[in-house]
């Protein structure tokens, strides 16, 4: 069996969860003895490569210079490339199966192109985020007010984007769904996301939940309990207005000095400098006194290879995102490293972290509730060890690949 994994980015140039998941899937299938051939095709924006072309990156791996031309209907910028070099690529490679990890930055038309060119090839599409459902970067967070959005509707979506009529949103949905009809199956990394897509219109039997795999070798052996001066809480990820760092900082401010003296908070993350001015100022105002006081360490960016090392030093991982998330990689990484997780109790986070079992939930966007949860984590004897003991090993890369291949067997 010949498999092509298509992704919207290559991990050589981009380290988002979806492209890493796609690449891991490719490698896991490729490594499988006697399986056949596996190929990885990743969209790129490398300026050194000409628009629309497909070029080999290394044997079995290809880069496709492609982009979105119309983010509303998720249309490709370069349809002639879809019908040209991409079609030729498909005809040349003749895969039996294609795993498409995300159509963003490529264009939703590739689904139809694949099935029209190779009618017998099985096409499995992995859904990341809510891009097809929500015109607001696929976040299902209301435009301007940033309220959580519970369901799409033509009228609600038009309210978020008044320059677009409900009829425009019908056209968007029709165009995307019509292209989605060409997929043989969909994969959702979380049940929460699966539910959202079922409500949107994908028949339930067409979507299977397969969690992104994690390298299993990282799972550390349980060491002796640490004898620390303070309980360590860590945030790992991008510092954007959706990841909730400001909620965490506000929570630290409302914790009493007595408790704060027994804890330290570490922020490991990048990209604050590319956020809006107001957000940078907010973060700066909140963090300054805490850094001076000594309960906050602003560690900054890290390389993926440094993550395990950094995470190993904390007791708890906090995921305070203010949007639904899908299946945040940081939760899997925390579990791989044996750390219980404190997260907002909504969406993909609430699904992946079991409240009171292998982590704790707090009310999303509520600093006081997060503060109380942190206080509990820092002061309840044996809680951390108890939750840690319940952590289940995340799906391994091999198990993940098994699940994908089972879909097309």
């Amino acid at each position, binding site marked *: 069996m010949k498999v092509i994994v298509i992704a919207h980015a290559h991990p050589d140039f981009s380290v988002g969860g979806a492209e890493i998941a796609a690449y891991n899937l490719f490698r896991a299938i490729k490594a499988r003895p006697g399986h056949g051939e596996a190929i990885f095709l990743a969209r790129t924006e490398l300026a050194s490569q000409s628009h629309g072309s497909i070029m080999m990156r290394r044997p079995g791996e290809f880069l496709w210079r492609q982009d979105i031309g119309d983010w509303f*209907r998720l*249309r490709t910028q370069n*349809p*002639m490339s*879809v*019908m040209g070099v991409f079609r030729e690529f498909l005809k040349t490679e003749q895969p039996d199966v294609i795993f498409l990890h995300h159509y963003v930055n490529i264009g939703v*038309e590739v689904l*139809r192109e694949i099935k*029209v060119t190779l009618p017998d090839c099985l096409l499995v599409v992995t859904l990341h985020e809510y891009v097809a459902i929500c015109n607001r970067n696929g976040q299902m967070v209301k435009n301007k007010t940033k309220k959580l959005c519970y369901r799409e509707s*033509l009228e609600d979506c038009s309210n978020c984007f008044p320059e677009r*009529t*409900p*009829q425009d949103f*019908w*056209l968007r949905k*029709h*165009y995307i769904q*019509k*292209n989605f009809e060409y997929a043989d199956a969909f994969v959702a990394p979380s049940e929460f996301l699966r539910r959202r897509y079922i409500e949107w219109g994908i028949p339930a039997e067409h979507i299977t939940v397969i969690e992104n795999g994690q390298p299993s070798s990282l799972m550390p052996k349980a060491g002796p309990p640490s004898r620390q001066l303070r309980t360590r809480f860590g945030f790992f990820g991008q510092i954007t207005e959706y990841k909730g760092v400001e909620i965490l900082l506000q929570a630290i401010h409302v914790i009493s000095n007595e408790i704060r003296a027994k804890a330290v908070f570490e922020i490991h993350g990048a990209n604050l400098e590319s956020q809006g001015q107001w957000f940078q100022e907010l973060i700066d105002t909140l963090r300054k006194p805490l850094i001076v006081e000594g309960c906050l360490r602003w560690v900054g960016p890290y390389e993926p290879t440094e993550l395990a090392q950094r995470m190993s030093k904390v007791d708890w991982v906090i995921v305070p995102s203010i949007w639904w998330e899908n299946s945040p990689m940081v939760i899997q990484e925390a579990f791989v490293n044996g750390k219980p997780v404190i997260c907002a109790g909504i969406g993909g986070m609430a699904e992946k972290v079991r409240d009171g079992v292998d982590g704790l939930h707090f009310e999303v966007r509520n600093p006081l509730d997060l503060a109380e949860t942190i206080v509990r984590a820092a002061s309840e004897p044996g809680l951390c060890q108890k939750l840690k003991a319940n952590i289940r090993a995340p799906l391994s890369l091999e198990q993940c690949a098994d699940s994908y291949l089972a879909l097309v067997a």
Partner: protein
Amino acid sequence: MTTLAADSSRPSAPVIRRAQDGVAAGLCVDRVVADGEFLALSGWAIGGQDLTFTVASGDGVSMLPSLTFFPRDDVAAGYGIPDNLVKGFLATWRNRPRGDMQVRLNLGAGEPLGIDLRVPEQSRAAEVAQFLTEKLSLARFLFEGLINSPAAISLLVNHLDEPPAGFNRARGHIETARGIEGVGGLVVGWTVGEPDVSFRLVDDQGAVVSLSGAARWTRNDIVEAMSRDFGDYAFNAGFLHGWRGPLRFGGSVRVIASTDDASYALAEIKWSPAPLDPVSFARWVFEFPTPREKFAERLTKHDGAIINALIERKIARRAKTPPTIQEYGRQAERPKCAVVVPLHGRHDFMLNQLLAFSDDADFVAGAELIYVIDDHRLVSPLAVDAPMFAASFGVPFRTVWGGENRGFAGATNLGVANSCAPFVLLLNSDVIPLASGWLERMRSVLVAHPEIGLLGARLHHPNGAIQHDGMGFQWEPTWQAYLNKHPGAGLPGSPSREKFVKRQAVTAACVLIRRDVYDAVGGLDEKFLIGDFEDSDLCLKVREKGLEIACLPLPVTLIHLERQSFSAIGTSSFRDYVARYNAWRHQARWGAAIAKLSGVDKERATSK
């Protein structure tokens, strides 16, 4: 009896019958003026009951003039009798009697007084001028009499003064007078006055219209400024009057106020050009807020014919160059059915339509898909996108560009004219199919039922509610017209059925017709403004041919996003007036036929 020379400035000496205590009766004609078709006599009478004017050379027929009386104190003083015994008179004819004339003053039991007049064929210009200027105070009567004598009116008006400082019975102003030479124009302004003051518009060529027929509305600015002096009369001051006669740029038009004894020119404005384009013209004239309930009347009296003339003018001037036709993809050799889709404002609907058509094998193989570009702004985007659309979706189509915006009807007709299939589906760009096979199914109905001339389809809103399931006509009293109604729209609708249902009419958003029938009825009527009512007009034309109208109650297959492409056109108020204009035009053509059709339907309903 006395006979006078024809060109005498004093045509008759007085004829006097004396009584013992003075003058008992008298008659005098002191002026006779003839100018083209206009004839006027003036004079005075003492005593008597009525005056008659008889053409002597004819069969003795009495010719009824427009006759008015006024005081002649000078005559009373001359004869030493009380003022009230003498009546000056002015008799005018707008279509003059030919031949000499006998004027009689009937005296009841006594012998009448009579004067025989030789009526000149044409008075000297100076004489006419003198007559008119002497009679300025009677101008309001002369306006009526002189209506066919523009030169005389012009002369008269040129001698009218502005109102004197003490004149406070009327005010008025002209704000705009715009027109198109050879078509007509519109004069807009305001007048305020006591009810017995009459207002007229007079141009420098002597054409007159009475403002008694003007479309009027209340202007708050005039009420505010004028009600201190005029009270209630300040209401309904705004006026608008159509001008169907010839007009000349640089020439002027005046508003004249006339009382019983005086006429004054209140205001004057020069004609300026109005937009030649019918939509631009309508945009201008529909701004004047005449009452909506009288809009149809206003169109009939004032601007409806002008708009119609401009539409005809535009169609007549269309470039005769052939349309630009581009083929994309391999066209079907013997298409079964043309699908004609006009594009206006936006073309992204094509993405959804073509994507939907792409997996309908019958459609791809048998349809002759024609997108008619009806918008200058879309020409270039289509040239770029069309090849890519055809390649992406694998649906062959043609684009047809007629070089100008023709409106829905004109664009559709152009598309049909450039198709060759024996059936034609008229389709809006915002109708998107959700399934395959619907076109072939519609076609099979027309093939099997030659008695059906037009077959519409059930259309749905995005939420599945009915958008269109056939149309019916409904009388709208405030519009004074039958309107097209969509029964059941917005509701879930009856279950879909295999068989078609007969209807009064169907929408052109999606309608199938045989090409020969389309040609026989002349296609869609292009003379509606921007577009509206073409569909019911088409239905009524097809009915006239003795064919039936039907609708196919499909399950939720065709989504109609409705009116999306109109959003670019303008304010809803303008749209409302455009709809009213089209309803007015539709009513003029089809009102009687629809009334009959509705009556027929009533009979059917009661006989069940």
